């Protein structure tokens, strides 16, 4: 497909209908993101259920708008009430809320919005530039490489999000892989872990699980522990672009961190923003100002989590492996709407990557207007009691899951996934690797067996190809690193010269 044809396809999906849907997505995303307890991942999962009747690409455009709006919206509540709307904005509370409490709420929101825009644009630029390159590389991959990328994704996601124990992240990811393998096997039609129930033959549906896992625990926790919300007042300060541009180096570095972490499978915006915040604080001339209303800190956090959006979509489109939990739910939505991400996407829908870039650009444009415009009404919305909001969210969870296939079992799955989510939260088991595991289960399974079949059962296929070998080494290093082997070796090496002295 030539450049002109691609452009024609892109403009076809920038009609008034698409622009309206993207704007709606951004608006919904900003509200969902801003409301503490409702996350971007949950919003995408809910809206996937609701929009499943939309024609293919229009629903995806809407969800992309929601993704951009959701990540940015979380900063509104982080600044105004000191509670991050989404985990991605937790680091923004560190400096955003102190700024707002010091009477600089409008300034903090404007700075965070500008940093979000810079971050999103940086991520989009990387998406446009890197996706075709990675797709070209991925076309040379065989089943062995795809299996190892999937496994590496689950393990690194587990290691980076595991919290107090990396093992918790790994077991969550492997549990997700097992859930993803329930149902009829793709290669032999053998029924796995279905308990003979015909409703599970097609596998455990991803969207109801996501709705339940992210939605129900929030509902229960918000209803059982309602707290009074202290909302900061908005001032009328105006911020000039010049004031932000003096932090161009912080923004650039945070953008790179965001995209880099976004590309790593299943890690996501929260890790990106905390990493960027930590790096910025370490490199800052005024680290003592961090946590007390540092504009630099706010720029670092907001640029990174927004640039992560573009970064997370790069492996999703080129490899079919999502870079963050919201991107993982997006993968489910893509499949529902007949778009199968991965290297073959460039043949099936050659203009899709550029369409995605265009939708994200339009979403960024709307985000620029909506974020400030919403700040005032959001002050009121944030004061809505959980006792009103959460029952409505439950109703949306149920209808969102039911509307996909009109099956009662999906409602039950929402409930049980909710209980599982609650258990995971209490035990401090991360959600990201579980989500990634569920999405990648079929990919890991079929490619593992295809690779073995191609080699006649010889495991050396995973070591003899260069990319496979690199991935195996990366997996081994990752495991050894998490088990503290390198740290122990380093300690021994340090002790030896001391002993010699």
């Amino acid at each position: 497909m030539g450049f002109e044809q691609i452009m024609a396809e892109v403009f076809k999906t920038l009609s008034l209908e698409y622009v309206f849907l993207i704007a709606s997505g951004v608006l919904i995303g900003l509200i969902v993101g801003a409301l503490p307890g409702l996350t971007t991942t949950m919003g995408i999962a809910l809206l996937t259920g609701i929009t499943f009747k939309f024609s293919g690409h229009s629903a995806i455009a809407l969800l992309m708008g929601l993704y951009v709006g959701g990540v940015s919206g979380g900063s509104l509540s982080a600044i105004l009430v000191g509670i991050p709307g989404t985990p991605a904005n937790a680091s923004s509370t560190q400096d955003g809320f102190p700024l707002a409490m010091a009477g600089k709420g409008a300034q903090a929101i404007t700075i965070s919005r500008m940093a979000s825009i810079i971050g999103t644009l940086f991520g989009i630029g990387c998406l446009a530039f890197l996706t075709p390159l990675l797709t070209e590389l991925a076309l040379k991959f065989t089943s062995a490489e795809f299996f190892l990328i999937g496994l590496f994704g689950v393990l690194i996601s587990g290691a980076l999000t595991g919290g107090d124990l990396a093992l918790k992240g790994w077991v969550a990811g492997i549990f997700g892989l097992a859930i993803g393998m329930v149902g009829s096997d793709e290669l032999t039609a053998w029924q796995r872990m279905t308990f003979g129930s015909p409703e599970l033959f097609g596998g455990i549906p991803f969207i109801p699980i996501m709705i339940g896992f992210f939605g129900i625990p929030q509902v229960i926790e918000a209803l059982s522990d309602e707290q009074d919300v202290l909302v900061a007042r908005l001032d009328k300060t105006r911020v000039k672009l010049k004031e932000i541009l003096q932090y161009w180096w912080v923004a650039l570095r945070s953008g790179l961190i965001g995209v880099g972490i976004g590309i790593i499978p299943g890690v996501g915006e929260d890790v990106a923003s905390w990493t960027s915040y930590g790096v910025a604080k370490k490199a800052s001339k005024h680290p003592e100002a961090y946590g007390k209303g540092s504009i630099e800190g706010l720029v670092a956090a907001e640029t990174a989590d927004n640039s992560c959006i573009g970064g997370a979509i790069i492996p999703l489109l080129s490899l079919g492996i999502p870079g963050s939990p919201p991107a993982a739910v997006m993968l489910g939505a893509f499949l529902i709407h007949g778009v199968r991400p991965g290297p073959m996407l460039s043949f099936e829908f050659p203009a899709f990557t550029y369409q995605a870039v265009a939708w994200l650009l339009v979403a960024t444009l709307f985000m620029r207007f909506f974020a400030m415009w919403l700040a005032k009404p959001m002050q009121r919305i944030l004061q809505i009691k959980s006792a009103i909001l959460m029952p409505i969210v439950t109703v949306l969870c149920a209808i969102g899951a039911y509307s996909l296939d009109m099956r009662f079992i999906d409602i039950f799955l929402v409930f049980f996934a909710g209980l599982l989510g609650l258990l995971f939260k209490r035990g401090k088991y991360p959600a990201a690797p579980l989500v990634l595991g569920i999405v990648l289960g079929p990919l890991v399974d079929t490619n593992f067996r295809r690779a073995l079949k191609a080699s006649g059962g010889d495991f050396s296929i995973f070591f003899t190809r260069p990319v496979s070998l690199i991935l195996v080494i990366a997996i081994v290093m990752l495991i050894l690193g998490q088990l503290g082997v390198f740290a122990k070796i380093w300690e021994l090496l340090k002790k030896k010269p001391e002993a010699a002295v």
Partner: protein
Amino acid sequence: MEGVRGRSEQRDVIMDEAKVRLRSMDVFMGLGFLAVGAFVAYDGFVAFHATQLATVDKSANPGVTTLFIGSLMGLLGLVIAVIGVTGSRHPFRIARQAISETLRSKTFYKGVVAMAGIAVYFFIFWDRLPYVVSTFLFLAGMMTTFKAGAWWKIGLISGATVAIVWYVFGVLAMIPLP
């Protein structure tokens, strides 16, 4: 100064206690993962030896991955449980203590009521009552239970929500609601 040191020591004790409780919970969660892993591995084992799959190449057998994944999950679960035992020392005693404290907290009961409300809506109301009725009852019931405001306000919000959801899904999206 003394007061500050005292507060910081108190915080450390609370944090240590929270960690010990987390480790105690890890014992049970780890054993849970071990059980699930064993089931997954068993399912793989059954597939591996199924006569129906005798003609399928062993390397392409659907049991290969589940056997591997199940064993790995079981192993990780066991390691987590062991870490939990060493970290908490008396997991059962700590769990008993945590449960008795939880049972005395108001938050827990509120959570149970919320969960029960959702369960009633999902499992009893959903396929037995017309959608509009069940959803209105659920919304009004939950809002009343959790003291959302005056009865007329609850009625208005519940009614408006039901009308919007029914119109968007039942009419616009043409989804056959129960």
